[in-house]
């Protein structure tokens, strides 16, 4: 599952193992309830992320957060949110299987992404995330470091995204 798909010195593209993934929708004024259920203070600015161990949260919209956790914690997190639902309305939807995640790392990572991603990647802060597109696919792009990104792609779009990254990686390897 996590074997390198394609790589060369300047950039590597790897399919990552699954994580527990949630779409959280909640009124921002109720955010503290969600934070205590999830065990992490949630960022409030769109595009920002917060991380603690294997828990991570990214603010994707005015009332929308993407949550990541260890796979084994998925049910516990669902239960924790279940407990606060009566008092704090929200929607927590498990989307662990909706997306697959690619890791894109290396000095040429941002340039490789520019093959299909129209946003200005230099303005994506480390630790942040953006919903954008890669070619025809809607994706969430997470920046873990200057030269390390994750690309979350709906499962059925992944072969298309991977295929284009593979062609583009060959361009880089050939010096173009």
């Amino acid at each position, binding site marked *: 599952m996590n074997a390198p798909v394609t790589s060369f010195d300047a950039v590597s593209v790897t399919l990552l193992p699954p994580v527990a993934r949630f779409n959280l929708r909640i*009124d921002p004024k109720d955010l503290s309830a969600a934070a205590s259920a999830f065990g992490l203070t949630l960022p409030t600015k769109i595009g920002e992320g917060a991380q603690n161990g294997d828990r991570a949260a990214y603010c994707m919209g005015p009332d929308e957060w993407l949550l990541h956790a260890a796979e084994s914690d998925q049910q516990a997190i669902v239960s924790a949110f279940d407990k606060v639902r009566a008092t704090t309305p929200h*929607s927590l*939807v498990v989307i*662990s299987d909706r997306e697959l995640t690619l890791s894109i790392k290396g000095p040429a990572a941002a340039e490789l992404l*520019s093959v299909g991603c129209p946003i200005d990647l230099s303005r994506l802060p480390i630790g942040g995330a953006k919903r954008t597109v890669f070619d025809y696919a809607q994706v969430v792009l997470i920046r873990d470091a200057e030269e390390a990104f994750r690309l979350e792609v709906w499962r059925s779009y992944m072969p298309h995204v991977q295929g284009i990254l593979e062609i583009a990686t060959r361009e880089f390897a050939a010096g*173009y």
Partner: protein
Amino acid sequence: MTKYRVKGKGRVNHAKPVSFTFDGDRFEGVEGDTVASALLANGVHLMGRSFKYHRPRGVVTAGSEEPNALIGTTRGKGQFEPNTRATMQEIYPGLKTESQNKWPSLAFDLGAINDRLYMLFSAGFYYKTFMWPRSFWDSVYEPFIRKAAGLGKAPSEVDPDSYASRYLHCDVLVVGSGPSGIAAALSAGRAGSKVVLLDEHAEMGGTLLSEPSITIDGKEAWDWLEAALAELDNLPNVTRMTRTTAMGYYHQNMIGLVQKLTDHLADAPTAAPRERMWRVRAQEVVLAQGAIERPMVFHGNDTPGIMMAGAAQTFLNRFGVLVGENPVVLTSHDSAWYSAFDMADAGANVVAIVDTRPEVPAALVQQAMKRGIDTLVGHTATGAKGRLRVKALRVNPVRHGKVGPAQMLNCDAVLVCGGWTPSLHLFSHTKGSLHWDPEAKVYLPGHKTENVHIAGAGRGLWGIAAALEDGAKAGTDAVKALGRMTGTATYEVSNDRAGTGITQKELPTDRSAGKAKAFVDFQNDVTAKDIRLAVREGMKSIEHVKRYTTNGMATDQGKLSNMNGLTIASDALGKEAPQVGLTTFRPPYTPTTFGAFAGYHKGKHFEVTRRTPIDSWAEEHGAAFEPVALWRRAWYFPQAGEDMHKAVARECKATRESVGIFDASTLGKIEVSGPDATEFMNRMYTNPWTKLGVGRARYGLLLGEDGFIRDDGVIGRMRDDLFHVTTTTGGAARVLNMMEDYLQTEWPDLKVWLTSTTEEWATIALNGPNARKLLAPFVEGADISAEAMQHMSVVECTVGGFPARLFRISFTGELGFEINVPARHGKALWEKLWAAGQQYDICPYGTETMHVLRAEKGFIIVGQDTDGTVTPLDAGIGWAIGKKKPDFVGKRSLERPDIVAPGRKQLVGLLTDDPKTVLTEGAQIVDDPNQPKPMKMIGHVTSSYWSEALGRSIAMAVVEGGFDRMDQTLYLPGESGKPITAKVTSTMFYDPAGDRLKVE
């Protein structure tokens, strides 16, 4: 060394010969040559035949504006390209090129008969000639026009090259690397802005490459250029791109660049793309595209050997090629005098400088005299001698508007300059306005709609000093617009060649102007006479003149011809140019390959192909696939020797007799969650949701505001505040968008949230009398017996050890279940059910069988049986409307007069009188086949299949007043011309009582 190569001249590598072929003949050029410069070095001017008259044509420019020297190039199998500009294609060992529009040869072309018949081919020729008789249109005229249309052969083989694309963001994009562009890039680059500087040529420098004699800041031009480019290369915030054309300028400073990567290489690496399309978003854009030299319009001005003076200067100084040994210069601008001087200094015998202006600067005349060049000021050109190459130029003095006696100037080249046109094509793409400078008679940039700065000759300035100063200022202005402070660099220029000139209509002549072949548009063979004729025939706007004459409509978009055409048209109309107008330039700036636009979207990546988690199983089991929205879905599973008809008949039978398994993963799924979920559902869907119990499911119908059916699907209530909504495969994204739209704009007060879970779940449908028997052993945590789990219900449990949402529903009329499991487990569960299902002869079926089974039950498919004009009542599913609900999307429209009026098309069943006849979907229906034509169509067939269960054909159709036509006979077109007869019935063809759902 080839005859016309000047030793030590130019920027080409004289020590590195490169050989290539043109029309099969081998030619030698040197490294750094273009096809045009290499052919000229060999004394070859004739490079093509013109489009309409097949006149011999030579190269006229040294750049991308070239209208004549369009050639075919072949780099390998499938890599033929027509209409390559010989002035832009660099040569490499083994390059194969050919001329176009000639037969049997370039020097002797039978098509040139058109030239003798030129009086027939006047403006509007097509409109006037190909009119009558009407019957000739299809058989004679259209094939003729199609054959004549277009220059060059379209490639017929698959293009083996790959094309790339990338996005790029920068602070300042500088288009053009002449003195203005380089100065702008230096200003912005030194200030720390992220700068991209590009040029369409292989080398940067623009005019500087053709003007080595000037000095900048005490350095010779080329030394200064080298230092400037080195400085840019040392700035980490500056990127330089050569062989790159800014081909389109779009909204909000989005510029399309096409970078040619390998067309100049003999051996390109296999993984190297041929071209790359860059989509650049620039904060500020500097257009430093310079100006394009204008031809002069006189009889025979298209004879090979007659070319732009600036081009001759470029061929000499940049490529070390003399375009002729005995040139005549014909000009109305100072610039060509300098071209003449450079030619003379390089050893050419400049026969004369002919200037159409009555007066020219004395300093120029002195310099000409010093070099022993005759000057003929106040003269006109009235003809050229020579067919395949110019032999003499006929010139006459003009005094007080009178053309004097002619003299012939023998020559082997005529270097022309009719002034300079600022290059505003990209600016024109932005819809920025142009303003007319009545003194210089040029259009200049006016009101800007984008963050753009125009510098140098592009806004009518002339001379290197002016260009540098203006470029530096544009760069500084761009930096300031970004909110940063910076100073403006200054440049000291000596030996500059500043100058002025005039532009004019066709040159005065002592001969009949009506017979002059004085070309305005070389590529489309439009003459001055054509433009005047168009005006005489009533064309008053330049847009009409353009279309009537085709002036400026060739692939060069009139880079050389538009302004001359406008000048002549405005003269003929007796109006100033702005009153006649200016045609609009549109992207692309120069012809662009389809490959560059397509990028990675070819072959497997032409379009996204979405595959379900079970897709690979279907492929391994020989499924035929069909595209449904972006998905590919298993269509049917043919066994050896089966066609679709047989496979579908078998799949239908197996499902109705025992059990069938179907991949329904593509169904759209939306989680509707929150305390106001029920209220939201009540408002969106026609059905009532308040009383639907937890664990129950209901068919949901979604209308648009207009009352017409948009989507449908089964919806399960998981909790009080949670619905599992399913949509059609193709409607998934559309429905979510529609729901979000209403939620965000109409009902922001509702506490409910929507999340797409289409791809979270893999969905497997089991249908058939043995469905429960097969499924039950796999289910834990739920009782799915007939008593415990009624039809239309849903339960959370595990199936095969996987967490599942299990629905008991049926789209086939059989006992049915739909099992949703997390997508990664979809295939594993399928395989478990498949293995266990062998005891029941389980049959995998595809979308075709699904369609037949549902049609037998009269279930509609949105988009097939509905077309955006069908209401629930039209479709016979008025029962799905919650009558007591105060409102839902589309409710009010259902009371519109046209919606409640009788005679609407209604969905009914059709049974052919001959049970073996399967109607054609889309077939039109009439109620009387004997009525006169045109007959009144009263409806059409929406679904039609062979029903294995019924042993006959079935069909659904929308028919005017269909519900009132039960048992009526209607008529449809048959193959033999004899109408097919069919009776109107209910759409419930099979098991109307629904007994088959009640399997214990």
